Each structure stands twice: as structure tokens, then as C-alpha cells.
């Protein structure tokens, strides 16, 4: 029986359990629901939960564990002599799995009967050809040992699935029966359901956290692989980024880090004053209607996908900057400093525009959280509005604003699409903002797209770059949160 059927049956049991539980709760008080401890639906939820949750948990665990256990047992059946040179056990095992799946398909589609499959002999039948007829392609002829292993694999997985179906159904029925039998007027179904809800919430939170841990760990392992293939001194201290596939690449993060930080710096130079002044206008000067109109409008900027910003950089800002700083006599300034549309300035300016709503919206919240009494105090002493903003509101809001700027910086450092399209691809140290440079994120993209070989340092370097980037932005975020939190305590 396929798993989907099993899940459907579970769903039906759950629904039935809900209805039955509710009905029994009502019946136990002869329909006078006021005498029940909880509302009738809670008794229903209680029965449904006990029918569904344990069975579903066992199902999930079984589905994860069964292939691993069977693999371990079957791989013991393959003799070492069978493993060809240059290959390894896992490749042979994947052959075994394919043959097993093919045979399964043959039986279920009716091309072979179960007895026929059981009687197959690798030397007598051309299994590769027969499976090929059904669309299962095998890389090589099936050897007797492989067929034997595949037969064993098939047998084990079918018994396993049978057991799984049985256990899950029994568990669901047992949970249903037990909780149904507990359903009576005194039973505190509401409290049980409450605990169930709590467990669900904890589960969701831990999945989010565990995923983060998982991401970091997977990056960490690939990074360790990278450092076993490539010298860490070159990565952290080298001066050149020149990947090639001859095996003598120079893979140093420093030129990329320089590009990243330079572009982020320009982005912040654009975003911080504009964003901050916009926030001050909106929170201190704008009348209510203007604010209600302008704030959402500014926040639309935050909703634009970064790829659109990338297009804007490539098609509008880049050519505009070339018109200003390049093209010799034809240019606006008659200069010839800039040749291509992609440059640090292009990417930085566009990224700055992207960050404006980020800075302004966070700063606006922070400025608004400065108590009105501070402003009153200053205005009551005869200060003007801008004096009040400059000397009282800003100093009070400064830690929070610094936090907002750090958060913006960590976004700038991690930004990908704008720099892929606007910054260029040349890794170098230069102070000229009109030259193209490249960033960590663009190099990750380029190292991982196209044909990749996950055993070469040129590909694995992407993980080392990614981890460094992660550590960098994580550090900035923690610093920002620390500053923001410290500031918040002042007014509570």
C-alpha cells in the first residue's frame, strides 16, 4: 500500500476521531454541555490528536530510517571484488537500488509477474534490456551479485513497508481508542489540547533553529573539505583571486572582501543621510496626512525585488554614470574615467537606493520611541524644532540608529543580485569607484553555476566564502541587536 493511501486513512481516522470524541462527550452528559469540563470540540480535538500525532511521528521516522537500515544490510552483501576500479561502494549501491526499483515497477505495471521476478537469473536473462523496455536505464549489465542484492533489497523494503503500514495503523487506532475511552465529562480535554498546542509551537520553533544550525554545519563541512584541498593562508592572506581549472588557482578572499566592503560603504554613504533625513522629516515634521501617504510610499521601495534594482543599475544608472564620467569629449564632463557601465559606484548607488527604506523605516520607529516629554522639555525651553531634533531627539535615538545602520550594512554585504548585475567581475584592489570590481556574493554565484565538480577547490571555495560572509553578517547583526537592545532599556 503506498504511503499516500496510508496518509489518507490517517486523515479519515483523525476526522472520525474528532466527530466521535465530540459525540461521546455530549452523550456522557446527556447533551447538557454545561456539565462538561471543556467545550465539546476540545474532546474532539483530543481524540483527533491522539489518533494522528503518534502515528504520523512513527510514519515519518520509519520513512527516514528504513532506507538507511536496508542500505546498511544490503551493502554488506556486495563483495569488495565487485567494486570496479575508480568507483566506490555507493555507486554500486545506487545500481542495486535502481534494479530493485525497476523490478518493482515491472511487477506493478504488469510486465512481469511476481513469480517471474523472483525466478530471474542474471546469467539467463538480459535484465538490462528488459528493464530498458520499461524506461529504467541501467549503466551496465546486471551482475548476479547485484541482482541478488537487488532482490534482497526489494524483499526487505516490501516487508518493511508492510510492517510500517501495520504499525502506523495500529498506533492510530490505539491512540483513537484510548483517548476515546478517556472521554467523559470530568476529563480535562482543554488542558490536554493546550499542551498539544504548546508542543506544536515548540516544534515549529526548534525546526527553525535546527535548520539554521544545519545550514551552518553543511557550510562548515564543505569549508573543511575546501581547506583540506587548499592552503588557508592563501585564502585568508593571499592577494589574488584567479580561479582556473588547471589546479593552481589562487583563491584569496581579500580582493573580494575589499570589493564587498567598498560597495557597501558607498551604499551606506547614499542610504544613511537620505534615509535618516527622510525619517526625521516623517516623524518630526510631516503632518499626519502626509505621513500616512509618504511612509507607505517609501516602503514600496523595500518591496521591489533586488533583480529589478539590478536591471535599474545595468540599464539606467550605469549608462548615466558613463555619460557623466566617461566617453571623452562626448560625455557631460568631457572626462574619460569610466569605460563600462558596471562599476563600484553603479552598484553602490543602486544598493544605497535599495537600503533607503530600510534605514528610514527603522530610524523612524526609533525616533518615534523617543518619549514626547523629551521634545516638550526642549521646546518648553525655547528651542526650535531642528535644535530639538539635533540636540535632544538624535542623541537619545543615536544607539538605535547606529543599530539600524549596522543592520543595513549587513544587508549590503550580503546583497547579491545588484552586484552581480552592476559591479562587474574583476577581482582587484583599487580605490577608483569608477572601475568594476567584484564581491564575495557574485563570486559564490559564478563558482557554483554551470558545470561544477564538488571535489575541486575552485567549487568548494564558494562554501568558504559563504561561511565567511555568514560570520561577517552574523557579527554585524549581533552587534546591532546588542546596541538596539541596550538603548531600549533606557526608557522602560
Amino acid at each position, binding site marked *: 500500500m503506498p504511503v499516500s493511501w496510508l496518509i489518507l486513512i490517517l486523515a479519515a481516522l483523525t476526522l472520525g476521531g474528532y466527530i466521535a470524541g465530540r459525540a461521546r462527550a455530549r452523550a456522557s452528559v446527556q447533551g447538557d454541555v454545561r456539565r462538561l469540563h471543556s467545550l465539546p470540540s476540545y474532546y474532539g480535538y483530543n481524540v483527533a490528536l491522539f489518533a494522528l500525532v503518534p502515528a504520523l511521528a512513527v510514519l515519518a521516522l520509519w520513512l527516514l530510517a528504513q532506507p538507511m537500515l536496508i542500505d546498511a544490510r544490503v551493502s554488506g552483501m556486495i563483495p569488495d571484488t565487485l567494486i570496479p576500479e575508480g568507483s566506490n561502494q555507493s555507486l554500486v549501491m545506487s545500481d542495486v537500488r535502481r534494479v530493485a526499483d525497476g523490478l518493482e515497477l515491472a511487477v506493478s505495471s504488469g510486465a512481469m509477474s511476481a513469480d517471474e521476478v523472483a525466478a530471474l537469473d542474471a546469467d539467463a536473462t538480459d535484465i538490462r534490456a528488459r528493464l530498458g523496455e520499461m524506461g529504467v536505464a541501467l549503466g551496465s549489465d546486471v551482475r548476479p551479485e547485484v541482482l541478488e542484492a537487488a532482490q534482497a533489497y526489494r524483499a526487505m523494503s516490501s516487508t518493511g513497508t508492510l510492517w510500517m503500514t501495520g504499525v502506523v495503523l495500529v498506533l492510530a487506532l490505539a491512540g483513537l481508542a484510548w483517548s476515546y475511552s478517556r472521554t467523559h465529562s470530568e476529563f480535562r480535554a482543554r488542558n490536554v489540547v493546550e499542551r498539544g498546542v504548546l508542543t506544536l509551537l515548540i516544534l515549529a520553533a526548534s525546526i527553525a533553529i535546527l535548520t539554521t544550525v544545519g545550514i551552518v554545519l553543511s557550510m562548515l563541512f564543505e569549508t573543511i573539505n575546501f581547506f583540506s584541498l587548499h592552503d588557508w593562508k592563501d585564502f585568508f592572506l593571499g592577494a589574488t583571486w584567479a580561479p582556473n581549472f588547471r589546479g593552481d588557482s589562487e583563491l584569496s578572499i581579500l580582493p573580494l572582501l575589499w570589493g564587498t566592503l567598498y560597495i557597501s560603504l558607498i551604499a551606506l554613504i547614499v542610504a544613511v543621510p537620505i534615509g535618516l533625513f527622510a525619517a526625521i522629516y516623517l516623524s518630526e515634521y510631516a503632518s499626519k496626512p502626509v505621513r500616512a501617504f509618504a511612509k507607505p510610499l517609501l516602503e514600496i521601495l523595500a518591496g521591489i525585488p533586488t533583480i529589478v534594482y539590478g536591471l535599474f543599475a545595468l540599464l539606467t544608472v550605469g549608462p548615466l554614470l558613463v555619460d557623466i564620467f566617461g566617453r571623452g569629449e562626448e560625455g557631460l564632463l568631457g572626462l574619460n574615467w569610466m569605460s563600462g557601465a558596471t562599476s563600484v559606484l553603479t552598484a553602490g548607488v543602486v544598493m544605497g537606493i535599495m537600503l533607503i527604506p530600510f534605514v528610514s523605516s527603522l530610524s523612524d520607529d526609533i525616533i518615534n520611541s523617543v518619549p514626547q*516629554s523629551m521634545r*516638550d522639555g526642549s*521646546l518648553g*525651553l*525655547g*528651542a526650535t524644532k531642528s535644535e530639538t531634533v539635533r*540636540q535632544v531627539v538624535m*542623541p537619545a535615538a543615536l544607539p538605535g540608529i547606529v543599530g539600524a545602520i549596522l543592520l543595513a550594512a549587513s544587508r549590503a554585504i550580503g546583497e547579491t543580485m545588484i552586484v552581480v548585475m552592476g559591479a562587474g567581475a574583476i577581482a582587484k584592489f583599487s580605490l577608483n569607484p569608477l572601475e568594476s570590481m567584484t564581491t564575495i556574493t557574485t563570486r559564490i554565484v559564478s563558482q557554483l553555476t554551470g558545470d561544477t565538480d564538488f571535489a575541486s577547490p575552485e567549487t568548494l571555495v564558494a562554501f568558504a566564502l559563504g561561511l565567511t560572509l555568514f560570520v561577517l553578517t552574523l557579527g554585524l547583526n549581533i552587534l546591532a541587536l546588542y546596541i538596539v537592545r541596550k538603548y531600549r532599556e533606557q526608557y522602560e
Partner: protein
Amino acid sequence: MNQMTSVEKTVSTEANKITAEGVQVYYGDTHAIKDVNVQIEDKTVTAFIGPSGCGKSTFLRCLNRMNDTIDICRVEGQILLDGENIYDRKVDPVQLRAKVGMVFQKPNPFPKSIYDNVAYGPRIHGLARNKAELDEIVEKALRRGAIWNEVKDRLHAPGTGLSGGQQQRLCIARAVATEPEVLLMDEPCSALDPIATAQVEELIDELRQNYSVVIVTHSMQQAARVSQKTAFFHLGNLVEFGETGQIFTNPTDPRTESYITGRIG
């Protein structure tokens, strides 16, 4: 009303610091202050009493145009400070607020050092020519605020680190530092404990030597203790205004009597 005006006439007009004539205040559609006439004398403590929401704080905030910061607020009528209408076009509200200082209900020291809190006003208005003069102004203000002895050794500690009562006296010192002519106090003791209240009340009495003080209070005992003149507000009307002793012992209006004896409010 007639009787009240006759009381007023005994006061010489030179001593009047602030004269309000026919003041109406609207918050949007709400008529918050209805036709208030009042004379506030120089070097006198005037108390505004009345139940919550009667408009006494609103009226107080009219006296230094703090209501300007509220968009929906509209003020009509005349308020004369030394004979000049403060709602006149040529009056700069910012300059006015330097002359009519204000102390708020909750102590609101800026998140700066004690010194910078007091020096804030003098710096903005350019009252000191050099550092030494500024030091002098700060010390004088802190002495007038009766807090100098407590903070003289830690002038550069943050003002927010002081206790509630000290913070309020710091705010008074801060208001005094700009050399105002009138000091408005909006329930200055409502966030303070009895000891700090007693200190602030003592301070108000000393401030009377130099300034005209207007204080809004919910405590009738406080009004009786610190003020020479008392105005009773009810539902946006100025019900009765006169000598504090007379208001508390022999009120002319039955509403005043009910409030003082605790029957309304």
C-alpha cells in the same frame, strides 16, 4: 463674575504679569476652554485647581504657546504678557518660551549629563560668552533648583541617573537657567513621593522671590500651601479666581465649595 472683577480691581495693574482676556481653546470640535479671563501677578504663586479634564493644563499650555505643537488645537482671545499679546503674529513662540519656562508633570531630563541638561537653554539662547560664565549660570540655576549640594560632585553624570525628586528639581533648575520671567508648572509633584514633594514645594516658595509661578495641581492641600492666588476650573470654565485663603475658606461659587469639600471632582 461681577464680584470677582471687583476683587481684581484692587490689584494694581503694574503687578500683572499675564492678563488673559476671553480665551477660547478648541481641540478639533471640542470646546476645551470657554471664555477665560484671568490676571497673573508678578512674584506670586498662582495655583490652578479643578477636576481632571477641566482644562487647567490646557490653559497653562496656552500661556507659553505649547499648544502650537498640537495640530488640531486652536486658541482664540488675547493673552498679554507685559501688555503684549503673545498670540500676535510678530511674536516668535520660540522666543516666548524662553521667557515663559515650563516644568512638566513627569521629570523629563534629557539623556545628557546633569551639567548639559542645565546648560541646554543658555547654550541655545547664547546667554554665556565663555565657559566660565556658563559654569556660573549652571551653578546658579542648580542652587536655585535646590539641588546644587547633591550634584556638585557629579555634574557630568547622566541626569537620568538621579532619583525622581532630584530629576524634577533638575528640570526646574534647567527651566530657571534660561532666566524666564514666568515659570509654568504642570502638576510638578504628581510623580514624586511626599519627601520630594515637600522639597519641590519649598523650592516653589523660594522661586516666588524672582518669578511669577503658575502651578497646576490636583492636590488642594498643595494649592493651599504654596499659592497666594487660586483659580478653580470646571468643565472648561474659570469658575472662581481669588486669594487662596478666601477660595479655601469662603468660596463664593457653590461649585467651588462642592469641589473643595470633595463633593464633585
